[in-house]
């Protein structure tokens, strides 16, 4: 989640607030330093999660305690090496991660890497869908709010933006389900597709795991329609949250560019208001929005956990909740590490884009 303060674009990068004060050095050096900073971020989060999880005990007791006789439990703990000192286990875990070995999940005995690949694509699909919804909501409405600044459309849209922040994703999802799935019966209640279509789509050769893409590739139009119908409500629930943030961003930045001299010049030459907002003021305002869009990924991932649980969308977030309930800490660690990598990489890309656009950001 995010605060509602409209941050100026150059403050948008998440790491090292001190870098703006430094001067000198080229773009190349900045990129290298910024790239190297990814590793401490990931390392810290891995360490934090590892030790926090171990405060509660070893993964086997957590998952199977009470269901196995004590001596059998002890034997499994010993076999997995969880009775050794925690520091030994920690360094062993780091070594395993470095070689890409995340272990096997305890509750369903999958390779963690396979599990991440399977469910990760579902989350990716949800993220893409809701990003599309957010852009469709945020950009035009933001321009409208900027155009009618301080008039009633602006007031209404600002209240809408605050409401979209104040409404938890799962409550928005619950309301959408009540109205469109149960009340009107237009859309399915939960899931990613009907089970028949789901089987057909996962049975394809080289599935991408993104259902609508797979449906298009196999030319299965019935399945495509079904997948789309399932995607609508989750995408709207999650997209509303991010869309509100985009709306505010677009509004603030378009207001900024609308007051520039070149817009005034265009107006005096008789260019119509609509064209001024959509062509002249909008494009320069887009640059900071792109950088902030990258930062929304953390918000989107957090929201995905709740959205997926609400709609039984079998992605990483849904599985995370399941694994947490089953106390399957090996799986949980795997998911959290993946998310940490995604967040760190996105922040890196955002900073690089910001540095390419704006030379002041560099070291």
């Amino acid at each position: 989640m995010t605060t509602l303060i409209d941050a100026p674009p150059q403050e948008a990068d998440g790491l090292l607030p001190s870098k703006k004060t430094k001067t000198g050095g080229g773009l190349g050096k900045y990129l290298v330093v910024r790239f190297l900073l990814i590793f401490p971020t990931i390392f810290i989060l891995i360490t934090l999660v590892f030790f926090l999880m171990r405060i509660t005990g070893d993964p086997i007791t957590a998952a199977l305690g009470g269901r196995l006789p004590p001596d059998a439990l002890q034997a499994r703990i010993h076999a997995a090496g969880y009775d050794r000192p925690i520091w030994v286990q920690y360094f062993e875990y780091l070594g395993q991660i470095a070689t890409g070995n995340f272990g096997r999940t305890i509750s369903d005995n999958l390779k963690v890497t396979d599990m991440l690949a399977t469910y990760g694509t579902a989350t990716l699909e949800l993220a893409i869908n809701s990003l599309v919804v957010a852009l469709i909501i945020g950009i035009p409405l933001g321009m409208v709010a900027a155009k009618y600044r301080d008039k009633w459309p602006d007031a209404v849209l600002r209240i809408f933006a605050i409401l979209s922040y104040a409404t938890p994703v799962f409550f928005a999802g619950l309301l959408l389900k009540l109205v469109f799935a149960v009340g009107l019966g237009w859309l399915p209640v939960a899931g990613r597709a009907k089970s028949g279509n789901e089987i057909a789509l996962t049975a394809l050769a080289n599935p991408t795991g993104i259902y609508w893409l797979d449906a298009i590739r196999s030319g299965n139009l019935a399945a495509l329609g079904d997948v789309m119908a399932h995607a609508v409500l989750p995408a709207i629930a999650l997209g509303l949250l991010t869309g509100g943030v985009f709306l505010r961003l677009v509004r603030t930045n378009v207001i900024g560019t609308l007051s520039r001299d070149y817009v005034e010049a265009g107006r005096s030459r008789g260019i119509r208001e609509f064209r001024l907002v959509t062509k002249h003021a909008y494009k320069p305002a887009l640059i900071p929005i792109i950088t902030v869009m990258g930062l929304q990924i953390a918000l989107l991932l957090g929201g995905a956990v709740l959205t997926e649980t609400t709609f039984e969308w079998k992605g990483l977030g849904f599985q995370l909740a399941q694994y947490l309930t089953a106390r399957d800490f090996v799986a949980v660690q795997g998911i959290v590490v993946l998310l940490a990598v995604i967040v760190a990489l996105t922040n890196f890309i955002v900073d690089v884009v910001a540095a390419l656009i704006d030379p002041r950001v560099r070291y």
Partner: protein
Amino acid sequence: MSRKEGSLFQRLPVISHLGKSVGLQRGMLVTGLVITALFLLTAAFAPLIAPYGFAQHFDSQLAPSGKHLWGTTSGGYDVLSRVVWGTQTAVIVIVVAVILSIFLGVALGLVSGYIGGWLDRILVVIADAIYAFPTLLLAIVMSIAISHGRSSMLGGIFAAAISITVVFIPQYFRVIRAETIRLKAEPFVESAMVVGASSVRIMARHIYKNATRTLPLIFTLNASEAILTLAGLGFLGFGIEPSSAAEWGYDLNKALSDTTAGIWWTGVFPGAAIVLTVLGLTLVGESMNDLNDPRLRGRRRAGRKQPAAPQTPGTNALNAPGTEIAGNGVTV
């Protein structure tokens, strides 16, 4: 900052903001204050308002009626009572979470900013790593580490509060650290050093008071985030047990399976409570943010500049927008 003629009362954070506001901005601030006051009053008088206890059992899934104004849940709880008692849980968690994170965040920020060097760099990298991570996930991991996911009344409330705290500390840390670094170069700090004051004394007396001016603003914004995080934790099943305290997120989780049967009252009311509370706090926090920033602050129209000019009561601006509204929300 403070105007000469202002009495102590007029210089209090929220009151002074109210004085500075005009038009739509004042409307938003007043609306936010009213909702927040309502929220706090409900929490304070929950035992008087709620018709039943939060853990009292009745027949399950009764539709709203005279006996149960908002119906009952699948677990047989009275929805109205759960919503009312839920305000109390929310207030306690907010207060504990925000106080803890202010305490730790301010202390770390002061030390990090004042001492600098390697300690500062390490703390900054750690704070940034935590800051960049999805807050809810971190809170879940914390709540498992603290309470194994579920616990008693006080334990549950503290587990939720501490989970939220971890998320907030980096925010306070950043603000206070930045302020401390700025203040460290000020002449009054240097003269305190020359006089021979100890580092602890300089931090505690001279820098602390000056660095914490922006805190009321962060407090309100974080309070709304704390409610959302608490509800998210409860919704995912890592919050407070229903028999220990009423919590809106938990009720919404249970309401999810009711929706397919068309039962709306178990979910709509606790959800609306969350939205209203967050809305109120956000309106207050955001109006204060805008008013603190001269570039964003609305200005009175020219011709009403005289100090004695009567001010129109704010709320009408929302009813009749476009007539009274002065410029607000300007560019950055």
